[in-house]
C-alpha cells in the first residue's frame, strides 16, 4: 500500500528540482496564510458575497487585473530564469528540459493569462462606464467568463508542481506536442488550461460586442462613442472569429492525444502542417486582439493630456476596423519557410505589409492630436509618449520580417524574438500600464504616486531597450530562439549579458510598481472630484470609485467627448446642473453559479489530463447541473430604491436635488 502511494506521488508531483521544492513550500505557506487571515478576520462571508459571486463588471474587472498582475509576476520570474541561464555561454543553471518548460509557460502565461485578462480587466472596468451603461449586456455571463479564465489559469499553473509543465512552445507545434514525443501530462495541462479559459474569452468577446452595440447611453451614436470602446469593439470582433479556431485546433490535438487520432501525428497520414496553419489563423488575430485596445487607450490618453480633441476620429475608427479584418489574412507569414511556394508567400507578405498602413495612420493621428495641444506629462501620458518611438520601431522591424525572402534569414532567430517582444511589451503591456495609471483613480478612488510612477516608467523603458535591442543583434549573429545553451565560440556572450541586465532592470521596475501601489494605498489621497485628470469621456462624470449602479441618472449624450463638452457649457454658464428625477435602478443579482460551474470545469480538465474518468465525468455532470439550475432560476434581478441611490451618492459627496 505505502509503496504504491509513494510510486503514485513520485509521478504525480514534480520532484527532483530544488527550485520546484521552493515553489511547493511557498505555495503551501501562502495558501495557509490566506486561509488563516480570512478565517481570523471572519472574512469568508464577505469574500463570497462581495467578490466570488459578484456580477458587477467593476469588481470582475478588478479581479481580472489582480489575476493578471499575479500572472505577470509568474511569467516575469520565468523570463528572469531564462535570462539567467542565457547570461553566459555554457551556463549550468537550468537543464534543457527545465528551460523548455519555462519558455513554454512564459509564452502561454504572458499572452493568455497576463495580457488577455489585463485587457479584459480594462474592458470590464471602463467600457460600461464610457458607454454610460449600468453594466455589461450579460452580467452573469461576464462572471462566468472570469471564473472560466481563472480555473483555466489555475489548471495551467498547477502543471509545474503536479505532473510537469508543457514544453512544446507557446503554440505547441506537433508532432513534438503529440504523445510520441510528449507522453507526460504537461501538454494536456496546456490543452485544458487554454480550452477552459478560451471559452471564457469567447464569451467575453460576445458580451462586449452586444454591450457596445446595444446598451449605450441615449444619444450616443456609434460615431460619438469614445475611441477606447471602438477599439474594444474591433478587438472583440476578432475574438469572436478567432477563438473558435483555437478551440477546434486544440480539440483535434486532444483527440490525437487522448483517443489516438491522427490529425497531426507523424504517422497514420497525420499532417502537422495543418495544425501550424490552424493555430496561426487564431494566433495572428490574437496579437491584434490584444494590441487594438492598447491603441484605444493611447487615443483616450493623448486627447486628455494634450487638452485637445482626438485628431482624425473617423480615420482612427476606419483604421482599426481594417486592422481587425486584415489580421485574419496574414497568418502564413509565421511560416514563409514551410515552402508553400512563391505565390502563397507573395500574397501573405503583401497582406502583412498592408497592416502597416492603418497602423502608421494611427501613429500620425496621435501625433497630430498632440500637435497644437497643451501637453502635460502625468504618468499615463508619459507611458504613451514613451510607447510611440518604441512601437514605431517594433512596427518597422515587423515590416522587415514581412519581406518574405528576407524572412528566410530572420525566421526563428532572436531578431524575431526581439520584434514580437517589442510590439507586445512596448505596444500591449506598456499600453495597458498607461491605461491602468490613467483609470486607476476611477477604479480605486485614488491616484498612484506620480514620482514613483516615473521611476517605474524609466526603469521599464531602459530595461526594455537594454534587454531587447541586443536581441535584434543576436538574431543577425545567427542565434536562434529556444536554445537553452550556447558555446563560447559563437560570439553571443556580450549581447546576451547585456540583455540579461536589461531583464533584471525590468524585474526591478515591476517591484517599483508594486511599491508604488503599496505607497499610494498607505498615503492615500481620496479623489473627490471623480475627474482627476480633467478628462473628456463619460466615465469621469461620476464619482470615483463608481457607485455599484454606475450612473444615478442615465446621461443624455449629445456629442463626442460629451463630458468635456458638458464641462465647457457649465463653465460658460450655458447649462445649469439640471434638476434630476431619480428612478429605481434595475440591477442584476449576484450568483454563485459561475464560480461553482468553473470549479466543475476544473475537475473536468484535471480528470481528462490524468485520464481519471471518475473525476471528469462527475465534473461534467456538475457543469450540466449548473446550467440546468441557472436556467430555472428566475430570481436574477432587483431594483435599487431611490433612497439607497440618494444615500450612496451622498456618501460619494454628491448631493442630488
Amino acid at each position, binding site marked *: 500500500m505505502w509503496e504504491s502511494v509513494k510510486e503514485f506521488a513520485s509521478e504525480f508531483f514534480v520532484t527532483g528540482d530544488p527550485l520546484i521544492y521552493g515553489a511547493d513550500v511557498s505555495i503551501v505557506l501562502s495558501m495557509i496564510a490566506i486561509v488563516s487571515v480570512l478565517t481570523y478576520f471572519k472574512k469568508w462571508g464577505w469574500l463570497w458575497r462581495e467578490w466570488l459571486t459578484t456580477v458587477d463588471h467593476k469588481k470582475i474587472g478588478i479581479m481580472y487585473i489582480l489575476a493578471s498582475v499575479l500572472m505577470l509576476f509568474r511569467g516575469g520570474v520565468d523570463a528572469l530564469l531564462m535570462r539567467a541561464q542565457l547570461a553566459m555561454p555554457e551556463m549550468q543553471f537550468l537543464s534543457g528540459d527545465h528551460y523548455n518548460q519555462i519558455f513554454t509557460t512564459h509564452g502561454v502565461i504572458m499572452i493568455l493569462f497576463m495580457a488577455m485578462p489585463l485587457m479584459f480587466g480594462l474592458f470590464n472596468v471602463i467600457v460600461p462606464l464610457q458607454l454610460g451603461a449600468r453594466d455589461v449586456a450579460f452580467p452573469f455571463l461576464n462572471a462566468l467568463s472570469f471564473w472560466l479564465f481563472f480555473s483555466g489559469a489555475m489548471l495551467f499553473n498547477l502543471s509545474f508542481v503536479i505532473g510537469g509543465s508543457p514544453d512544446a512552445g507557446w503554440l505547441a507545434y506537433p508532432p513534438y506536442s503529440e504523445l510520441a514525443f510528449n507522453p507526460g501530462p504537461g501538454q494536456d495541462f496546456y490543452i485544458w488550461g487554454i480550452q477552459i479559459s478560451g471559452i471564457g474569452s469567447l464569451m467575453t468577446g460576445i458580451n462586449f460586442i452586444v454591450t457596445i452595440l446595444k446598451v449605450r447611453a441615449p444619444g450616443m451614436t456609434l460615431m460619438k462613442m469614445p475611441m477606447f470602446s471602438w477599439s474594444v469593439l474591433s478587438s472583440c470582433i476578432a475574438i469572436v472569429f478567432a477563438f473558435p479556431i483555437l478551440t477546434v485546433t486544440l480539440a483535434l490535438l486532444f483527440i490525437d492525444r487522448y483517443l489516438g487520432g491522427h490529425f497531426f501525428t507523424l504517422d497514420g497520414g497525420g499532417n502537422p502542417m495543418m495544425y501550424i496553419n490552424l493555430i496561426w489563423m487564431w494566433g495572428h488575430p490574437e496579437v491584434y486582439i490584444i494590441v487594438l485596445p492598447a491603441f484605444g487607450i493611447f487615443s483616450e490618453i493623448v486627447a486628455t493630456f494634450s487638452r485637445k480633441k482626438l485628431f482624425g476620429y473617423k480615420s482612427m475608427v476606419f483604421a482599426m476596423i481594417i486592422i481587425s479584418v486584415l489580421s485574419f489574412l496574414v497568418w502564413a507569414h509565421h511560416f514563409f519557410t514551410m515552402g508553400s511556394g512563391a505565390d502563397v508567400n507573395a500574397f501573405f507578405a503583401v497582406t502583412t505589409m498592408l497592416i502597416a498602413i492603418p497602423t502608421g495612420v494611427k501613429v500620425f493621428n496621435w501625433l497630430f492630436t498632440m500637435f497644437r495641444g497643451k501637453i502635460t506629462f502625468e504618468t499615463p501620458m508619459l507611458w504613451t509618449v514613451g510607447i510611440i518611438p518604441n512601437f514605431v520601431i517594433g512596427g518597422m522591424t515587423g515590416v522587415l520580417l514581412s519581406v518574405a525572402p528576407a524572412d528566410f534569414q530572420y525566421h526563428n532567430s532572436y531578431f524575431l524574438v526581439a520584434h514580437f517582444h517589442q510590439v507586445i511589451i512596448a505596444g500591449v503591456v506598456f499600453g495597458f500600464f498607461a491605461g491602468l495609471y490613467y483609470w486607476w483613480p476611477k477604479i480605486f478612488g485614488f491616484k498612484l504616486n506620480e514620482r514613483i510612477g516615473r521611476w517605474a516608467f524609466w526603469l521599464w523603458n531602459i530595461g526594455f531597450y537594454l534587454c531587447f535591442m541586443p536581441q535584434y543583434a543576436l538574431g*543577425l549573429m545567427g542565434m536562434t530562439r529556444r536554445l537553452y545553451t550556447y558555446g563560447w565560440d559563437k560570439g553571443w556572450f556580450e549581447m546576451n549579458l547585456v540583455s540579461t541586465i536589461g531583464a533584471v532592470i525590468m524585474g526591478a521596475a515591476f517591484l517599483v510598481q508594486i511599491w508604488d501601489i503599496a505607497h499610494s494605498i498607505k498615503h492615500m489621497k481620496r479623489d473627490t472630484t471623480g475627474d482627476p485628470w480633467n478628462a473628456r469621456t463619460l466615465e469621469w462624470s461620476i464619482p470615483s470609485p463608481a457607485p455599484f449602479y454606475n450612473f444615478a441618472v442615465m446621461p443624455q449624450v449629445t456629442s463626442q467627448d460629451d463630458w468635456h463638452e458638458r464641462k465647457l457649457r457649465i463653465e460658460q454658464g450655458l447649462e445649469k446642473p439640471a434638476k434630476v428625477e431619480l428612478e429605481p435602478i434595475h440591477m442584476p443579482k449576484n450568483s454563485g453559479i459561475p464560480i461553482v460551474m468553473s470549479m466543475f470545469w476544473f475537475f473536468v480538465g484535471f480528470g481528462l489530463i490524468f485520464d481519471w474518468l471518475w473525476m471528469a465525468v462527475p465534473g461534467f455532470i456538475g457543469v450540466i447541473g449548473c446550467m440546468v439550475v441557472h436556467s430555472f432560476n428566475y430570481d436574477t434581478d432587483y431594483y435599487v430604491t431611490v433612497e439607497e441611490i440618494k444615500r450612496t451618492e451622498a456618501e460619494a459627496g454628491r448631493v442630488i436635488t
Partner: protein
Amino acid sequence: MKTSKTVRCMSFLFMFILLFLTTGCADNYIVLDPKGPIGEQQKDLMILSTLLTLIVIVPVLILTFVIVWRYRDRKGRKAKYTPNWEHSTKLEIIWWGIPIIIITLIGIVTVRYTYSLEPSKPLESEKKPITIQVTNLDWKWLFQYPEQGIATVNYVQFPEDVPVRFEVTSDAPMNSFWIPQLGGQIYAMSGMSMTLYLQADEQGEYMGSGANFTGKEFAKMFFTANATSQEDFDQWVNQVKNTSPELTLDGYKELTKQGTSDARYFSAFPEGLYEMTVTKYAASHNHGLSTRVQPPARVKE
C-alpha cells in the same frame, strides 16, 4: 523639459544602434556577412527594405520629438493651441498616402524577390549542382551524398562555386535547416522533401544550425558546413570512402534514437534510405515544393 530631453537622447541612441546593426560593423553579424549568392541577395533585400521603411520612420521619430517638445504645457509658451482642431483632409491624405506608396514599393520588391529567391529554384551556374540529402533526426543532422555514396552526421562539406541542391526531410519533429552565411532556412518536415539551393562563393567553415525547436537537446544541433576547393572535396570524399565505416540500416535506426552526436562519417549508406525516410510517413499530401519521390523497393531488414 527633462522628460522629452531624455526621450530624445534615448531615441538617438537607438537609431544609432539600428544603423549599426544594419550596416554590420563586426564579424559576428554573420547574417550580414553572406558568402553565397542567395545570402547576398537576401542581405541586399534586408538593407533595401530597412532603408525604405526608414523613409517613414525617421521623420516620424523626429516629428514626435519636435511635437512633444514644442507643445508641452509651460508658462509663456508661444506655440499655437487649437483645442477643437480635429480634422484636415489634406493631412489625412498625406499620411494615408505616404505609407501606401512606401508599402507599395516594398511590396513590389518583395514579390519580385519572392519569385527569384524561391528556394527550390536552381541557381544559374555553369557547373552541375551537387545534391546533398539532409535528414533531421532527434538532435543531429544526417547528410547523404547520393552521387558520392557517402554519408555524414553534423558535418557537411561541398565544393565552392558549385550550386548545392539540398533535399531536406525529417525523421523527427519539425526542424529548420539553416546555414546563415549561405542563405535562408527551410523547414525540415517529415513526409516531404523540401528543396533548397545554396552556394558558397568562398572557401570557409560556416555555422549551420537547426532553427526550429525540437525538444530537449535541440540546442546541440549545430553543424559545420565546410566549403572547400573541388580537389579538397574530392580528396575528402575518397578519404571518407576508404577510412570510414558503412552506415547500415541498423546503424540508421541507432541514429534516429534521441541523443546528440559529434561529427561522424560513413563510407556508404543503404540504397534509397532518404526516399524511404520520406515515404515512410505516407506521402499522401504533396506540398507545393516537395518533389514527389518514388517509393523505393522495400528494403529487407
